[in-house]
Structure formats: C-alpha cells, structure tokens
C-alpha cells in the first residue's frame, strides 16, 4: 500500500486513502464489536433491506401504486396471498382502491425514511453548528444559544411540529402547502431535535477546547473558525453519530405520528404513517391487512434502527469496553 521504509514522506493518493480507510475500519474496535453481536448484525441487515428497497422502490416493488393505469378497482380489498380469496399478484393483499399493500409499503417507506433522514441531517447541522459555536466562543453567545435551547426543550417535539405545520398552513395557500408539505415536515421535525445535538457538542467542545492541541493551533495562528471545523469538530463527532442514529428512529416515529394525525404528507403520496391512518378505517370491516402490515414494517424499522443506535452507543463508549 505505502512504502514504510521510504526516506521521504509520501502523499497518499485518493485510492490509497480509501484503501487505508477500509483497512483501518477492518482493524477497528467498532468492527470487532459489530461482528461479536448477532443482534446488531440482524438489525443492520433489516435496516439495510428496508433502506435499499425504499431507495430502489420503482424496481423492487411489484406494482407502482401511484400509476393509475395499472390500478384496477376489481382488485380492491383482496386479502394477503396465502388466504383463501388471496391473489398471488398481491402478496400482502390490496387496499380499497386495488393498490398492492406491499407496493404501497415500499413506496411509503421511501417517504418515511426520506423525511426521517432529511430532518436528522437538518437537526444535526443546525445543532452541531450552534453547539460548536456555543462551546468554543462561550460568554454571551453561549448564554443566548443555551437559553433558546432551554426554552425550546420545554415544548414537546410533537407540539412544536404541530405548531410549525399550523403556521405553515396559515401562511401558504392550500396548493402550495400540499407541494411543500414534505419540507414543512422536515423543518418541523428537524427544529424540534437540534437541542440534543447542540448540548452534547457544546459539552464535548468545552472539554476539547482546553486541550493543548487546540492551543497549539491558536499559537500557530489558525483563525477560530478553522480551529472549530478542522480540530474540534472531528473530535466531538463520536457521540453525535449515536444521537443521530437514535434520532432517526424518533424522527420516523414523529413523521408517522404527524401523518397519522393528518398534518403530515398528503394522502396522494402516503408515508407509512398515512397508510396506517387510512387503513385503520377498515380495521373493523375485517380488512386488517391494510393497516397491520404498514404498522408492522414501521415497528420493525424503528426497532432495528434503535438497536443499531444502542450498539453504536456502547461500542463508542470507552467505559464499557
């Protein structure tokens, strides 16, 4: 890979850097603890399957539930394939409009995961940025940011999301709102989650900024912004990854809750939460599969992501090693 006996310092090419990264990852404690935990491996597998099928939904799903040309009302309300009136074309049955449940779940997971990931990324960037600033600069900046965080923390996430959605509905015309529903959702879930990142990063930054390598960078004359980004940030990201994983599960649940309450994505592009909401109307007429299968997928997805988060937390915690 690289010449260790050489007499000059080598600059690694991009490919070498990649190989180096893979080799280091394979030797790392994290990979070791991953291979020692069957639960985690199963959780990772389940998450990967759901994520990949959501990502490649148009190729994975047996039907496109949103293509009106392929939907036939004659197929409506069929039970799962293994039951007496089932049809082999629809493994998990169909809903009242003849859409295959399996296909709607795959497309729905796409929305759920997309909204979940986007709001985690949004909260992460906002929270990490503010936390870093707060911890490194200190003083009044720190006090202002942390008081805002305290105030925000006294509102439950769902309430905040409902509030943002309500304001957006009031401000935007109905058509625009339906178009922008996903973005409003991402914003409201993201805004309710940044505090945790900010607090964690602020705490770690307070520790890191007094370490001598940060002072060395100051003596060298690096501007504060670059010290924050290049020196402090990489050293405070460990706990952030753990929070992000657990937050992803929470964000998916919050999205499902909001969609279930009818303030989430529009029913024309249903997420898992919308599907559960729509399906529960048919629960008492015996068509249980419309709501049970999306619910089961949601539960499995959230459980798997949570298990991954728990493992990551333990693997990165030096006290538990």
């Amino acid at each position, binding site marked *: 890979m*690289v*010449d*260790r*006996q*050489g*007499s*000059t*310092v*080598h*600059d*690694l090419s991009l490919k070498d850097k990649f190989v180096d990264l893979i080799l280091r990852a394979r030797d790392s404690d994290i990979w070791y603890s991953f291979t020692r935990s069957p639960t985690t491996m199963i959780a990772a597998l389940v998450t990967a399957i759901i994520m990949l099928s959501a990502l490649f939904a148009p190729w994975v799903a047996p039907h496109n539930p949103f293509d009106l040309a392929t939907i036939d009302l004659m197929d409506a309300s069929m039970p799962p394939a293994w039951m007496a009136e089932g049809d082999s074309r629809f493994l998990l049955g169909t809903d009242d409009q003849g859409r295959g449940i399996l296909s709607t779940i795959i497309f729905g997971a796409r929305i759920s995961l997309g909204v979940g990931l986007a709001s985690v990324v949004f909260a992460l960037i906002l929270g990490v940025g503010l936390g870093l600033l707060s911890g490194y600069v200190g003083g009044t900046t720190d006090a202002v940011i942390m008081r805002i965080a305290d105030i925000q923390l006294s509102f439950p996430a769902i309430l905040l999301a409902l509030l943002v959605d309500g304001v957006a509905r009031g401000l935007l015309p109905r058509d625009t709102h339906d178009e922008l529903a996903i973005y409003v959702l991402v914003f409201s879930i993201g805004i309710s989650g940044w505090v945790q990142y900010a607090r964690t990063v602020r705490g770690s930054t307070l520790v890191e900024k007094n*370490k*001598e*390598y940060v*002072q*060395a*960078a*100051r*003596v*060298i*004359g*690096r501007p504060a912004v670059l010290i924050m980004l290049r*020196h402090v940030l*990489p*050293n405070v990201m460990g706990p952030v990854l753990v929070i992000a994983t657990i937050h992803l599960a929470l964000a998916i649940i919050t999205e499902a809750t909001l969609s279930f309450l009818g303030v989430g994505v529009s029913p024309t592009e249903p997420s898992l939460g919308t599907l559960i909401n729509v399906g529960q109307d048919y629960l008492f007429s015996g068509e249980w599969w419309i709501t049970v299968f999306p619910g089961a997928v949601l539960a499995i997805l959230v459980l798997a992501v949570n298990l991954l988060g728990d493992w990551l937390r333990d693997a990165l915690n030096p006290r538990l090693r």
Partner: protein
Amino acid sequence: MNNGTNTEAPLLSVDGLVRYFDVSAPLLNRLIERLDRSFVKAVDGISFDIGRGETFSLVGESGCGKSTVARLIVGLYQPTAGSIEYEGVEIGPRSAAADRKRMQPHMQMIFQDPYASLNPRWRVVDIIAEPIRVRRLLSNKHEILARVGELLSQVGLSPADGERYPHEFSGGQRQRISIARALAGEPEFLVCDEPTSALDVSVQAQILNLMKELQDRLGLTYLFISHDLAVVYHVSTKVGVMYLGRLVEWAETQTLFENPRHPYTRMLLDAIPDLEMSGRQRIPVAGEVPSPINPPSGCAFHPRCPHAEDRCRAEAPLAQNYDGVYVACHGVAEGRIT
C-alpha cells in the same frame, strides 16, 4: 533591565506583566449573598529580559504562575497589565493588532502533555505541516512533504513516520513530533512549558539533548518552564525563581545554583536529593503555597520564611540588583541574610 554582561538589546523583554483571573461567583449570587468579586493573581508584576540565543528558565512550585507567563507571552492569554516587547516591538495588551500578527509567527510553543498536544484525528504529516500551511511558507505540495520529512529527520524520527497517527507513538516520540511542529513555523523563540515533565527520566535526557542541539544549530532562544531543578541546571543560561506570581530571584544559572540568596531559592535548592550523602545541614521545604486569591500581605513568602520580620509582613520587597543577581527580599537588602 539589563544585567550588565549582555549589552545587546534583548530579544524578549517583559515589564510589569500582570494577569488576574476572575473567579467571582455569578452576578446573581454576588447580589444575594453579598459576595465581593474575587481574582486569582496568577501573575502579579513580573519583569525579565531574554537575550538572543539564551535559555531563560522559570522555576517554582505548582500554581506559582509559571505556565501563565508562558501563555501570556505566546498570546494564549491577554495580560491584565504590563508590557511584552519582542525585538523592541510591543506585542502586549496595548499593542497594535498588526504588530502582534507580525511578531507572533516568530514564536512557537512546546506543550507539557504530549498526549494532549497532538490532534488524535490527524496524521503526523498534517500536524507538522500545519504551521507551514497556515503561514504559507511553502505552497507546493511536494515541497511541503519534503520539508516535513526533513523536520522529522531533524528531531530523530523517520520521514516514513509521517503517515502514522499520534496514538502509534510513545510519549517521547510524540514530544519529538511536537518539537518538529514548533520548528515547522521557522520560529526564533520557543516557549517550552514543562516539555519533559510527562516523560520518563531516560527519555527526558534525550529530549533535552535534542532541544540543546537544535538551539546550537538553529540559533533558537528558549523560555523554559519547569519545576525540575536538575533539568533547569542542565539547560539554562539564566534562571528566574517564581513564587506566587512574582519573581523573587533571577541570575545566571551558575551563580544562582552556587550562591542562592533568596530564602525561597535556598529552600528549593535544599530540596534536591543529595546523592553524595555529604550530610550537610538542610532547611526542609516547609508549609504550603498560600492561596493566590488572597495572598499574604507584604512579602508573599513571609509565612514560610525563617528570616521573616515585621517589615516583611507589611511591605512588599522590590527586586534589587546585586552584581547581576536580582533579589526581591528585605533580608538580603538589609544584609540580614548572607
């Protein structure tokens, strides 16, 4: 302040340097509990000169403000009062930002803890190249790599070590990397804050010899902070003894070690283990360092001093020159202590 033997203008000149740290309770507590503001007088009026090519050591017990002086000089802390002149240019609190920016690259710092002073996520080559990149000494990637290789060889490491991470090295090797990083910025003046106190004795000697060799080769000037008198005797040309934020005595190394004048200096030197078993009479180091928040009146050393008199308790002594030896002590001034 010139000691007579050195007629050249000093490289670094510190005059009346003061740094207080605010340790007051929060405003609300102060209002309700009627507390006063309180300050730690970490550095309380220090003056000294360092000539080009010299090694000036600051010694003293833990908490006497040695490290604070180091941090004030490199600009990690802002002084509360006083002045710092580098090559005759003011870089202290009253300086112009441009002067500070112009002079700061001439000085670099080596830190105490080699385990905390290198960013664990950076490769050694990036750590050492940082000052070169920040100061834009070289812009070509290959030139930078070649320079880093050269620096690594200079401090006794292999250029191939550059692509490893800090955790792959021992304490002594890390301190070598630290030194290489400091040298990368091409400084004239190095502030070394206890660079060997975290190392094994055998490794200490290696690092000290390396620093001495680099000083001879590159004409560096050192400000050396330490509590280890054996190390100080080995490396310095001049020594300053600090007690509770003040310099109590400073002189040429030989003079100070052979003929210590201040009672505190004598106490410190007596604390060096006597391997020759000469059986000489020693005054043990007695008592604790008083709190710098509320230092004793008069001479700060009087509660521990065997020669203390009423004047010592009332009046703070000023440093006086006795043939190039500066001593701040009433007893020495009055001829009571010889």
